[in-house]
């Protein structure tokens, strides 16, 4: 997995970039306009991607679908007589067009309809009408962040790094659990405990597995970063330039927020996130510190379960709550990103199980100076909890690791906790 993991990530990224918008990229469109409302004209700037031809007779979709003479067309647009009133146009396609093409057609049809409406219902010029048509912008601005530095989209960076922590904790936490159970079942633990303290054995195992996780993480990161640089410089040179992406231009022109979001999502959510929005200088140190402390915090639970379970499969039932808490971190991340001032977000920020994720979201969205004290405070809380739970785990390891063959239950755990 050391090499295969990052290769799979890069392969996934490659396919996402290469085939992210897999629809048909060029279309011959037949426009059935029996009332001749569009006057055999759609746009004054024809493109190679979409070729329009007009048909002045009524056409239904079955006839289009089955008729031999229409086979050369990829789609047909039904312009009904009341289109200026009901503002609805139907486009029937044989193969779904790409998002780019969809937006281009929508943009051109909307513009043409608008021109016809202006001519039909107003005495205004087209330019004047479009000037008046501008929608009212309502900006919601946080008084504590008037420059809108806490950008929601940047929260995704935090979610991404937080997820990486959770992924590695889940993966290597299970390694700790399985390794401890295995040591118990093959009895090697008694030989080891004759030369080291049980707490040393616990820390040794946690640190050893943690270091292997860290090495793996670094190797993955190096591979992925090198791969992304190669993608950017040599393979997807165009896709990283937003000016090459027509969809954004159309959507922006027609002031359609949904379209704008949809069209920009391909650019924003991934490319912009990776190459422009990540402040590596701030987030990487925070990520590594919280990765380590969270790992120790969660490792205490996995170690305790492994050491107290009666068999290798016995501890599985106790792993479920731990994984639920790991999943809660994702929810905490979203809450923190969208409702950063809510009570729940504040609670998650100081709750040790979700602290790493919320801190990373906070760091990625907020200005670093304002959050520094909070980050240090959360780190202190997490450190204290990691220390306390490692102490508890050490006691459970000491009292439980030589016992096997039993069925683990809460009363046994309580008994071993009370025992010195």
């Amino acid at each position, binding site marked *: 997995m050391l090499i295969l993991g990052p290769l799979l990530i890069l392969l996934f990224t490659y396919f996402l970039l290469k085939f992210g918008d897999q629809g048909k990229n060029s279309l011959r469109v037949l426009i059935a306009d029996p009332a001749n409302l569009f006057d055999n004209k759609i746009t004054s700037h024809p493109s190679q991607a979409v070729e329009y031809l007009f048909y002045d007779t009524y056409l239904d979709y079955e006839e289009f679908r089955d008729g031999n003479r229409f086979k050369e067309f990829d789609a047909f647009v039904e312009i009904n007589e009341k289109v200026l009133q009901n503002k609805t146009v139907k486009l029937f396609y044989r193969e779904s067009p790409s998002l780019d093409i969809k937006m281009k057609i929508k943009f051109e049809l909307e513009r043409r309809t608008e021109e016809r409406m202006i001519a039909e219902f107003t005495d205004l010029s087209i330019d004047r009408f479009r000037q008046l048509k501008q929608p009212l912008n309502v900006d919601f601005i946080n008084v504590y962040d008037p420059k809108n530095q806490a950008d929601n989209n940047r929260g995704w960076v935090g979610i991404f790094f937080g997820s990486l922590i959770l992924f590695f904790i889940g993966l290597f936490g299970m390694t700790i659990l399985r390794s401890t159970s295995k040591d118990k079942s*093959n*009895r*090697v633990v*008694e*030989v080891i*405990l*004759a*030369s080291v303290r049980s707490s040393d054995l616990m820390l040794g195992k946690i640190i050893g597995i943690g270091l292997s996780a860290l090495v793996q993480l670094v190797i993955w990161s190096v591979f992925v970063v090198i791969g992304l640089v190669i993608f950017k410089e040599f393979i997807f040179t165009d896709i990283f330039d937003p000016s090459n992406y027509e969809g954004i231009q159309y959507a922006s022109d027609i002031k359609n927020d949904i379209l704008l979001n949809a069209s920009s999502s391909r650019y924003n959510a991934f490319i912009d996130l990776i190459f422009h929005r990540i402040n590596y200088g701030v987030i990487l140190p925070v990520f590594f510190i919280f990765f380590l402390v969270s790992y120790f915090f969660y490792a205490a639970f996995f170690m305790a379960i492994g050491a107290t379970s009666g068999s290798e499969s016995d501890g599985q039932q106790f792993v479920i709550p731990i994984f639920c808490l790991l999943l809660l971190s994702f929810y905490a991340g979203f809450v923190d990103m969208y409702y950063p001032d809510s009570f729940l977000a504040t609670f998650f920020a100081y709750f040790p199980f979700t602290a790493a994720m919320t801190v990373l979201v906070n760091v990625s969205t907020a200005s670093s100076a304002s959050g520094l004290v909070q980050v240090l405070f959360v780190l202190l809380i997490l450190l204290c909890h990691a220390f306390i739970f490692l102490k508890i785990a050490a006691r459970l390891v000491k009292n439980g690791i030589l016992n096997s063959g039993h069925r683990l239950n809460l009363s046994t755990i309580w008994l071993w906790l009370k025992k010195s």
Partner: protein
Amino acid sequence: MITISHVSKSFNRKAALEDVSLTIESAQIYGLLGPNGAGKTTLIRIINQIIQADRGSIQVDGKLLTENHWKDFGYLPEERGLYKAMCVSDMLVFIACLRGLTRHDARNNVKHWLAKFDISSWSKTKIESLSKGMAQKVQFIAAVVHQPTYLILDEPLSGFDPINVDLILSELKAMKAEGKTIILSTHNMKSVEEICDQVGLLHKSRLIVEDTVHKLRENQRRGEFVVRFSGNMIALANALWTEFELFETLELGDNRFQIIVKQRGERSFEDLASNLMGKIKLESIAERLPSMQEVFLGLIAKEEEKNEE
């Protein structure tokens, strides 16, 4: 010398050891005996500092047992365990390093022991591909690889064929000769008779007896003598008369016999010898001491009777 003083340990309010005190002299092999559940493994774990006693103390050469003594102890647990994915030499080097050896010394010692047991060719073999007997040998080496002063062996002979049993027993005798102190927990009474100097018998979490093997056997003597002679049995019966009871006869051929007789009343070895002299042709006459197996069973039975009363 290891001195165990008033050690007690209980698990979930059930006593595993109650006020156990015993002394293990240096350069001796001490047999820790007792039926299953007597508390042997608990005591061994306490000496190895794997678990802590609830009460009592252990001293090594007059000093309280601490973690500093880890390097002086070697331990072969009853339930053997090694990292199966590791190769033999790596496993042994790892254990030796845990016991305080440098990596260089550990490697040298491992080489030495593998050669001594004639298993150098297994050096790079993974533990999981070893047979049970082979793994036992590796486990034994893991206990002695760091050349401990004190060696604690829990059932060291189980899983070995007679050849390897002999090899291990010889090795233990050699270690004793080198001045090592060995604690041996076993149910193999023949080996106890053969190599142990002193034994402690645990029963139901208490130490019921501690003595040398010879004294324990002597204390349990039943006045039985083994006589070898040639002649006829009628002459023998006349010679024994009513003072000794004949209860086992073995014909050796050529009119030769081995008999076991038991004395009655206060009759002694000398009485038996004088009774037989001149009546049969004596080859040998010796007192038959009970085996450790018999001593063990006798002591346990006596303890059970005491408990019932």
